[in-house]
């Protein structure tokens, strides 16, 4: 079992996997966006794994990743799938349940 598997047990509160396709525009934007969230709002509470489907075919197949970028929020449960370059910050924050955390 690797970190690119949702059932991998992390000690942190958040476990995220971002699937990208090389350095394509949307993938690059998504990398920047998720890094910002992990370094700020989720600093110290987040395990992030980035999988490049162009290099790791099997990871895409195992997780049924059809589009890139795809963000799997494995933890906290339930598991949530976010697709897109994560530029819609509001939606990403809501998917991560960040409003609830702050209130």
């Amino acid at each position, binding site marked *: 079992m690797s970190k690119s598997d949702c059932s991998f047990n992390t000690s942190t509160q958040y476990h995220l996997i971002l*699937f990208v*396709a090389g350095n*394509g525009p*949307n993938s690059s*934007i*998504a990398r920047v966006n998720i890094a910002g969230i992990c370094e700020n709002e989720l600093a110290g509470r987040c395990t992030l794994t980035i999988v490049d*489907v*162009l290099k790791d*075919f*099997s990871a*895409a*197949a195992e997780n*049924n*990743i*059809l*589009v*890139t*970028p*795809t963000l799997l929020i494995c933890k906290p449960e339930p598991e*949530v*799938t*976010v*697709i*897109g*370059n*994560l*530029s*819609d910050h509001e*939606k*990403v924050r*809501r*998917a991560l349940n960040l409003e609830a955390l702050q209130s």
Partner: protein
Amino acid sequence: MCPNNLRVPAGSLEKRSIPKAPSSIRGLDEILKGGFPLGRTTILSGTAGTGKTVMAMEFLYRGALEGHAGLFISFEERARDVRANACAMGMDPAALEEQSKLRIIHAEIPADAIKAGDFEARGLLAMIEGHAQLTGAKRIVLDAVDSLMSIFEDPRREREEIGFLLNRLRDLGMTTIFTVKAESGGLKIYPFLDFMADCVLFLDQRIEEQIRTRRLNVLKYRGSDFLSNEQPYVFSAEGLVFMPVSSMSLEQLPLAERVSSGIHKLNQLTGGGYIKGSCVLLNGPSGIGKTSLASSFAHAACSRGEKVLYVNFETSPETLVGSMQSIGLDMRPALDTDSRLRILSAMPESAGVEEHLLRIVDEMSGFSAHHLVVDAISACLRMGSGRVPFDFLARLITESRARGVTCVFTNQIRNQEYLTRMSGIGISSLVDTIIALEYFIQEQELKRRLIIIKSRGSDHSKQFHQLELSHTGLRLGRITGRESESPGSGQEDISQ
């Protein structure tokens, strides 16, 4: 630059076709002149229930049986449903999956996925490439690709993504089939696809007079010849079966060999019996003895050790055997003991014309029949309107001729005056021999008589002969005594 295998020397009359991947689906490669374009994309569109998925799966399945690994990606149905449907069509995908010759994947984006910005379908490509590397698959089906693409919610993005996918699959040298839904009016979800693909097939079904007919239309095939027009197909227990309506060629028969009509006198009148491998039509009104004549032929053939397929559109096998007993023909041994006679009883309305044709042709081949009796072809008028009965009979004659099978068709006509003109279906030009039967009145008695109207390649009798049916059999003889009027008014026509 033109690849070597496509280069045709200047001035050469030889027309070379692009490389193909045979579908091995019965009849389809004949229509596509060899199969799907190798390493290219074929679009398979059609309305619901026309068998797009079955056809695409059968391509992979039959290929896998021959050693070509295939990948089936379903965007709509779950993998286990795809497997179950394939099983229902006589395929066993699980066994091939175990050998990694076939892989069925249900690819789906979770319905509750959140969209947060732009994305591409690269994951799908990665998945395809991953599987292809693992199994060496060069054949791929993307089933209901529109289901995936709808996630883009933008026609322009859908088009871009499909274009990218097609190009990439082509670069990978994949022989690809895209199945796409179409509206019943033939309206397409992705009209642009027809321009992008090398081969475009359209499946259609319609129901006329409560009989369902399915048709394939090849709309485009870049770099290849194909059978144009609508090509009928059916779902059978062994998968899809296409029955190409090619230019029907009725080749000249070798006229030398004869088979007995079962009646000695009739053999004399026809110049030695029916011509082997030819088609004989027995025309006449109800109750005149058409079935008896056809059965005499069948009985004689079985007695010689030959096999006869008797297609009975009128009665059950029991009724036929029973009624033939009353004229001294015991068909039971041939039917039960010797297995030389097979009776196929069918209601014309019970199935579409393709199903009937397939069943008869399959029986003919499986049973290795020497002869075929169809009693009565007039029932074919109940299979459908327009050209349907004619097409059915024409194709049946073609199939029989290709196998060297002698056909005896009975045809019931309503009015005697149409005797010589051949009523109804209009296949008289396709048959080799026409024998007409009719009633006439002599000395206040209703009698039967027979005349050979046409017999290709034979010096045949041109006179009426009296036909007598009794419990000892059929008898043909000269008409004695003074003839009176026939009940119809066709006498002048006939005796010309």
